């Protein structure tokens, strides 16, 4: 199978998942006891009826669903129930760039530090370096983002005053340093641990002994023969890692006051703003599907068994 067919098949495979996400999130929000306009103070019935008519909530559910899907296909996520002056699409367009920059930077930083750290630990197995890196990795996995992020803000923002703790001015990268680091730390830990374990396993393989027997330098053995195989588990971790980064970005954006999608989603959840939550979840789901697809493609490209036979 050609690469093109492979990509096409995976893309088509993503459609049912996305359709399921849309359907489920729509049905779940319509299942809700109580509507979005239930507030402390009961609205007069006339006002309520007008509001519901304005948002189409007085129609049967299947009509509402049809209208919602038609809107989605045009890129229209409907109006926000709470931010009355904005459509959900505007809020997404507003938050997406910030979230994307944040997530991409965290992923890159996490892999760029985690992979070399894992290699280093594996190559100095049992020595102090190895134990130090692995102890840090265990800590990085046990400490969740919502603990790391406040601690970083406390140490580097408040005590040392090196970096801003909150707020965001477009084009001022220093605002993003602490959020990115907070998101990247667990990733570094996971990637380092995976990389170390996988490289240690590969180094025991017969073909590594064969490469050594041919008198190759240790450096060549590791870089040319061991690493390309050992990196595969880390590549397949990229999908789950993306999910973790997206979830973590909710915490980081809320805590550091970044105007990304995550903060809108949390606000929407607190306000029971159904259309906003649905729209955000759909976009997050699409992002995750896309990232998983990229990880699969990278895997297929890196794994010679798949590359040669042409099928995963």
């Amino acid at each position: 199978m050609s690469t093109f067919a492979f990509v096409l098949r995976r893309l088509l495979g993503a459609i049912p998942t996305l359709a399921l996400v849309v359907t489920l999130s729509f049905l779940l929000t319509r299942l809700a006891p109580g509507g979005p306009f239930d507030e402390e103070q009961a609205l007069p019935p006339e006002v309520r009826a007008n509001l519901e008519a304005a948002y189409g909530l007085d129609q049967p559910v299947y009509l509402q669903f049809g209208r919602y899907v038609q809107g989605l296909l045009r890129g229209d996520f409907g109006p926000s129930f709470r931010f009355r002056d904005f459509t959900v699409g505007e809020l997404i367009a507003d938050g997406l760039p910030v979230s994307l920059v944040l997530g991409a930077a965290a992923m890159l930083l996490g892999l760029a530090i985690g992979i070399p750290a894992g290699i280093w630990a594996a190559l100095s197995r049992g020595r102090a370096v190895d134990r130090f890196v692995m102890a840090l990795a265990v800590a990085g996995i046990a400490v969740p983002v919502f603990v790391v992020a406040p601690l970083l803000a406390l140490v580097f923002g408040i005590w040392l005053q090196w970096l801003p703790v909150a707020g965001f001015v477009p084009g001022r990268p220093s605002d993003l340093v602490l959020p990115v680091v907070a998101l990247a730390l667990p990733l570094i830990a996971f990637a380092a641990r995976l990389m170390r374990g996988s490289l240690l396993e590969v180094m025991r393989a017969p073909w590594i002994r064969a490469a050594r027997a041919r008198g190759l330098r240790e450096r060549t053995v590791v870089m040319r023969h061991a690493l390309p195989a050992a990196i595969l588990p880390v590549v397949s971790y990229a999908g789950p890692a993306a999910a973790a980064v997206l979830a973590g970005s909710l915490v980081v954006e809320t805590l550091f006051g970044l105007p990304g999608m995550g903060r809108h989603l949390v606000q929407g959840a607190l306000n029971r703003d159904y259309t906003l939550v649905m729209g955000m979840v759909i976009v997050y789901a699409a992002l995750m599907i896309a990232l998983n697809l990229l990880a699969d493609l990278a895997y297929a490209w890196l794994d010679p068994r798949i590359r040669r036979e042409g099928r995963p």
Partner: protein
Amino acid sequence: MSSSLWDAARAALARDRLAMACAAMLALLVVAAVIGPQILDFREDEIDWAHMAAPPFEAPGHWLGTDRLGRDLLVRTLHGMRVSLAIALAATIVSLVIGVAWGAIAGFRRGRTDALMMRFVDVLYSLPQVFFVIILTVVFGRGPLTILVAIGAFGWLTMARIVRGQALALREREFIEAAIVGGAGPARIVVRHIVPNLLGPVIVFSTLTLPQVILVESFLSFLGIGIQEPLASLGNLIADGAAEMETAPWMLAVPAGCLMLVVFCFNFLGDSLRDALDPRDR
């Protein structure tokens, strides 16, 4: 499962000093969370007007200080731990029951049933779980029960996969054949012969599920869409602490320290259990 395997596992675990320390620490924390709030001098929502935001060891009786409303931090943290542990335990049991039943039936029946059941698991797996948990909290209101249902709804998937794989392998073994020859029906075989033999991996995976559930619950409570005030959970205590960390860093340190301790101990214990129960190492 033969008793010798369990004996060997217990011996291997007993030799692992750090794992034993983790188990002891967890036992201590659970006991403290259960009886601590009962025997300490303050209630979790009791306001001490004379000592607000008191640092640890300064105000009389408030060993770990108070929060900005003068509520005792030790009592609140123990209370939060009780809530977090209770939710984690309940959600783990839910996912254990569904996952084991689902996986054992799929693995035992094989064929179309298996394909259909596991396809369902695959579909749920492909959903962005955290975001669906958030939708569920929006739909059903925030609170312990919603969190439990939302986490339980996805928690059983991995368990079902693990159990199915094991059940498929077990099915081919002679003692299952013997049971079939002996006239045992499918229900009896699953309950009496397959499930007991799955205990090892199930225990290991449950131990590793507990900290995951604690983390998800704390994550939601931190964002304000999980456990709500005045009920304490480790997550909303950490959120409170993060808001006050400039002036009262202990408010962050105490609940965050407890959370990390619990998660670390469960993870480490789970890993050690896996090593101890893994027959390949012997």
